[in-house]
């Protein structure tokens, strides 16, 4: 661990200083902030609350080739990303890096997923602490925090005209070494300012949920009508899952253009009827009630039952972008009320 700083106007030098790495950072396209590979430092924007699209796409692209082949031939050409492809993700929020560690548990469960794991293994995560969390952020309720270091290799704090950069892991130190021409040693002043910012940010978080008991009790509400209060207005658009940093479900399809073909996987969503539809026409989750129940139960009960961690990082995206204001915290609070009522009458 080492403490550094650099002047804000040196951000461009910092990006170009990372010459041994491919650099990914938040970029603005109109009002939308999304992570992209940066070739020109001017593309980078670190002045953002959180990206609209989570950086899960850097480990798990929206569509990716698993292997290629020629139709009519029996040779398969795997398209696995190299673990030696060194990448830096600059400016990732602590919640989104925590999401990587959650999905990693599933992607290394007995069968290693080389596509996701090779990318993650080759990547150094240089985070950006949140100074101004969004109105629906609730990361402290699910094991994170606006300046959580746990899942990062290094963390930056925006201190006005300078960035304070603290390395956390060996990978983080390696990146700092590559930037020795840009970074200066930080002193106690920066450290203090960063700590104050982290404390202030934490106090700005307005929403929370006490998750104690939820994973154990949610399955008992399987047939409870409270789900319909939420699923009745769900449009089934799937945005809550597409923009969720821990949602990891995918479809696999073969695609051909003339004789050139590939097997690809692409983001899928449990909020679509086709997701669980059997070929026979039977659907175990025929309506939005079952699908809403599965989405919430998976994050807050099924996943923790298997992988000992809630599959939600409190980023607030599913709340912010739901077109009909379905709010995961409301659902969880209502589930607790419903469960308490059931327990009383039982």
């Amino acid at each position, binding site marked *: 661990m080492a403490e550094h700083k650099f002047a804000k106007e040196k951000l461009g030098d910092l990006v170009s200083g990372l010459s041994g790495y491919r650099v990914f950072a938040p970029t603005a396209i109109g009002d939308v902030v999304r992570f992209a590979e940066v070739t020109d430092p001017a593309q980078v924007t670190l002045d953002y609350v959180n990206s609209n699209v989570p950086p899960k796409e850097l480990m798990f692209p929206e569509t990716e080739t*698993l*292997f290629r*082949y020629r*139709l009519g031939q*029996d040779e*398969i050409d*795997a398209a*696995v990303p190299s673990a030696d492809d060194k990448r830096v993700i600059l400016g990732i929020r602590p919640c989104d890096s925590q999401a990587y560690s959650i999905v990693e548990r*599933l*992607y290394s*469960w*007995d*069968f*290693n*997923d*080389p*596509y996701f794991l090779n990318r993650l293994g080759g990547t150094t995560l240089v985070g950006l602490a949140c100074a101004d969390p969004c109105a629906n952020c609730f990361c402290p309720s699910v094991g994170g925090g606006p300046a959580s270091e746990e899942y990062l290799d290094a963390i930056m704090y925006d201190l006005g005209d300078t960035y304070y950069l603290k390395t956390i892991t060996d990978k983080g130190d390696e990146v700092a070494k590559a930037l020795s021409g840009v970074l200066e040693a930080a002193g106690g002043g920066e450290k203090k300012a960063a700590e104050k910012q982290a404390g202030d940010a934490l106090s700005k978080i307005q929403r929370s949920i006490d998750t104690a008991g939820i994973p154990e009790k949610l*399955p008992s509400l*399987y*047939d409870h009508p409270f789900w319909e209060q939420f699923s009745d207005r769900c449009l089934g658009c799937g945005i809550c899952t597409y923009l969720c940093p821990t949602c*990891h*479900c*995918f*479809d*696999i*399809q*073969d695609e*051909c253009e003339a004789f050139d*073909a590939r*097997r690809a*996987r692409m983001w*899928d969503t*449990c909020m679509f009827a086709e*997701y*669980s*539809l*059997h*070929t*026979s026409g*039977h659907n*175990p*989750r025929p309506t939005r009630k*079952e699908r809403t129940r*599965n989405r919430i*139960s*998976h994050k807050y*009960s*099924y*996943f923790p*039952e*298997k992988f000992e961690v809630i599959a939600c990082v409190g980023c607030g995206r599913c709340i912010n972008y739901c077109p009909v204001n379905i709010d995961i915290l409301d659902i969880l609070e209502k589930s607790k009320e419903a469960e308490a009522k059931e327990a009383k009458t039982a």
Partner: protein
Amino acid sequence: MMDESNPYLPYIVKIEDTWYETPGDRAIKTFKVNFTDEKVWDTWSHRPGQCAMVGRLGVGESMFCISSSPTERGYLRFSVLRMGKVTSALHELEAGDSMTVRGPVGNSFPLEEWEGKNIITVGGGIGQAPLRPVINYIRANRDKYADLKVIYGARTMVDHCFKGEFDEYNQEGTACHLSIDVDEEQWPHFVGFVPNLLMEVAPSPESAIAVTCGPPVMIKFVIQNLEKLGFAPEQIYTTLEERMKCGIGKCGRCNVGHLYVCKDGPVFSYASLKDIPEAFA
């Protein structure tokens, strides 16, 4: 075994032989296949109940049970009911054509635990496919098990899979109880649904294990009737099926509650499922 460095890559297999088990719109075709790379056999091992993703390049892959027993060496068998895109494309294939196989995946029937017991299989339609390796495993290890009973129903006389094997079962002393849903001329066996056939045969739960595979509605009533006959949930096994894409517990869709059918299943004891309502959704 599965390519450990990349579990998404299938093996190429050649179809050595193929035939129809049943005719019609929902025909069932069996494929007997072998790896083009014979070295795969050095590391391949599967157990009764395990599955594989079977597919055709350019179309896709779906999950099927391996309907041959590991005691049948040198080939794998899959019995495929024509239903959707992948199964229709597989049905177009003939001997000499290539298919893809990715597996084995999933858990298996705990046949070692069942040694010394009476085994009853209760199948319906294509549900006999995962039961066939159980039956053949027991036939190949006959002295390790007590009585073996096969109970199997299909919609009509022509809809039973593996018809040619029933005589062999009977000759070996394995009682084979067959049924069809609606009466037909010249049908000498039971007429009615499989749960009713089960009550007609009325196997004793004494030192017994019942294994049932078939349509979900059949499984539901077979389990009810097994309980009426005195079978405890721990004595009842079944397999579940859900839509699957990856087969290795990543793509998400095959969960029933916290269990992934592709990885935690497809074999479950009723004891492990009875408190998971989604298992029978």
